[in-house]
């Protein structure tokens, strides 16, 4: 038996004090918290920033770390700082350092890094050790060279090694969500199918409850045969349906989840409501070991710098001809840019130096080319946007587009028109660096721990 405790689904998302106390009272052996995701997009891995506010992360950790230290329960954090790169891990470590100092506690921290350097990537790529995941962009040596940052998603093994250092806190870079929670159970001999399935659900905190009112905690009791999930927030419960439905969320496959050492298979799992009506017991989860151990690589590259202008169109005569109006405007916009700058190449040419986009909110902004409906309505939000090599140039390109569209003639009207309601002055917003995912691959490893060095820091 081993009891795992996830106080919340993501560091910084918060939890109730009552739930946390109840969780600690249940005397868990491990506290785990996921701290990141690739879901907020490539910008965070690229910039080194965290998508969760520092204050929010500090508040959660300040409530967890002193209590866990006192109870002598190790805390495992995966994908520290939101994206798990070195700046993210350092940022999280800095927060922990502040907490240790302010609370007057001594913390032994095992820091596991996950950035994979170019030499390792190139050597693995040349040996055929890197393969694409579904939908991944084409990889070559140039992509590896120009990628800003690449992280590997560690499996259980680095966590298991870090646990052996006797650390109070394990602060890990990019990690498979399930590894955070499955490391200790697997080390104790719990079958991987049970451990990983339980871990996969618990890492979302109370994500698998019937109605999640606020992000909160979950307990998991694992044995060799099955596991029991118990949400901690009063008046919330897990049901077999809520647990199975949760397993669909953000997973490409309904039943199979690839992990570094193999595949978690929940296709024959069973789910039973416990007599308390709150907990759910799960069993029958299997694990199929793969012939090769692989870790997922997440990499990003700089795409440029973005500026944009937002406004509304309320002229119904213009709205009737909006798409041809925008198509013509875009042509004019491109032409004006090439007349103004000899060093700019548009997307019609090889190696474009900028990307221009017109987004129409109220028409097809959410789905783009996949939108099946045609426009009907009385108002449209419009964004003119440029991604260019520098922020200054992006700003200038948007200014050119803005000037063109504001007074562009509208068929049916004569005389000077002003086509857009701009809500802001200044109207052009400089949105900073734009990244794109350059790698979504798996890399074969002979040693699951090799690219994930562990350093013990005494705070």
């Amino acid at each position, binding site marked *: 038996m081993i009891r795992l405790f996830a106080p919340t689904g993501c560091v910084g998302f918060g939890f109730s004090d009552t739930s946390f106390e109840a969780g600690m009272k249940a005397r868990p052996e491990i506290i785990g918290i996921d701290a990141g995701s690739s879901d907020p997009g490539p910008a965070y891995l690229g910039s080194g920033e965290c998508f969760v506010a520092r204050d929010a992360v500090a508040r959660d950790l300040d409530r967890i770390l002193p209590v866990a230290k006192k109870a002598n329960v190790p805390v495992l954090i995966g994908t520290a700082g939101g994206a798990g790169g070195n700046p993210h891990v350092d940022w999280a470590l800095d927060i922990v350092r502040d907490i240790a100092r302010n609370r007057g506690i001594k913390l032994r921290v095992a820091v596991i890094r996950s950035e994979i350097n170019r030499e390792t990537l190139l050597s693995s790529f040349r040996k055929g050790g890197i393969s694409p995941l579904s939908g991944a962009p084409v990889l070559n040596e140039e992509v590896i060279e120009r990628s800003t940052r690449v992280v590997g998603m560690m499996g259980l093994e680095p966590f298991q090694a870090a646990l052996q250092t006797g650390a109070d806190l394990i602060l890990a870079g990019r990690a498979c969500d399930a590894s955070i929670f499955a490391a200790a159970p697997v080390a104790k001999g719990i079958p991987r199918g049970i451990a990983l399935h339980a871990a996969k659900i618990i890492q979302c905190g109370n994500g698998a409850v019937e109605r999640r009112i606020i992000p909160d905690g979950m307990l998991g009791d694992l044995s060799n045969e099955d596991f029991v999930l118990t949400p901690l927030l009063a008046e919330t419960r897990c049901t077999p349906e809520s647990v199975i439905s949760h397993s669909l969320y*953000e997973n*490409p*496959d309904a039943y199979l989840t690839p992990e570094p050492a193999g595949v978690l298979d929940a296709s024959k799992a069973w789910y039973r409501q416990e007599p308390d009506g709150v907990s759910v017991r799960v069993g029958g989860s299997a694990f199929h070991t793969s012939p090769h151990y692989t870790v997922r690589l997440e990499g990003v590259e700089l795409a440029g710098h*973005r500026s944009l202008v937002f406004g509304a169109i309320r002229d119904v005569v213009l709205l009737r001809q909006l798409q041809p109006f925008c198509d013509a405007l875009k042509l004019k916009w491109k032409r004006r840019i090439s007349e103004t700058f000899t060093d700019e190449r548009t997307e019609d040419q090889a190696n474009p130096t900028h990307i221009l986009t017109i987004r129409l909110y109220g028409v097809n902004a959410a789905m783009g080319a996949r939108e099946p409906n045609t426009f009907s309505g009385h108002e449209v939000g419009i964004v003119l946007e440029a991604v260019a090599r520098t922020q200054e140039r992006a700003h200038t390109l948007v200014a050119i587009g803005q000037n063109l569209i504001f007074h562009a003639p509208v068929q049916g009207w004569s005389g000077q028109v002003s086509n857009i309601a701009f809500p802001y002055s200044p109207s052009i917003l400089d949105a900073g660096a734009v*990244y794109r*995912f350059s790698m*979504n691959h798996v890399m074969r490893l002979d040693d699951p721990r090799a690219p994930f060095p562990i350093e013990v820091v005494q705070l």
Partner: protein
Amino acid sequence: MPLLCDMTSLVRSKNAGPFLLTLDIIFRDAGSYESVVRSGALSAESIARMYSTPVEDVKFYLCPEIHAIKATLPRVVGSGDPLDTDVYGAQQVGPLMNLEILLDQVPAGRI
């Protein structure tokens, strides 16, 4: 004809990693699930048409134990790409919700 959004407790879209989009359709009850499965309105082919994607790129799952249907397909571009429209893939549900379901007269439970 009822719409899919009137027969479901949840229709959601979300990224499944930076390059895939996954659609979860969870029905209100087994009867609604069975009648939609029987109607043929949802299949890998119909999803492929709705999302302008080659059918061989669509993965389609029936999950009768929770009366749900799931499909996974490629995103148009990677999440957060300069040309992306929806970083989390959170609002790619419109055509699904408005899907008209042709119900037959066979009682529920007899697929």
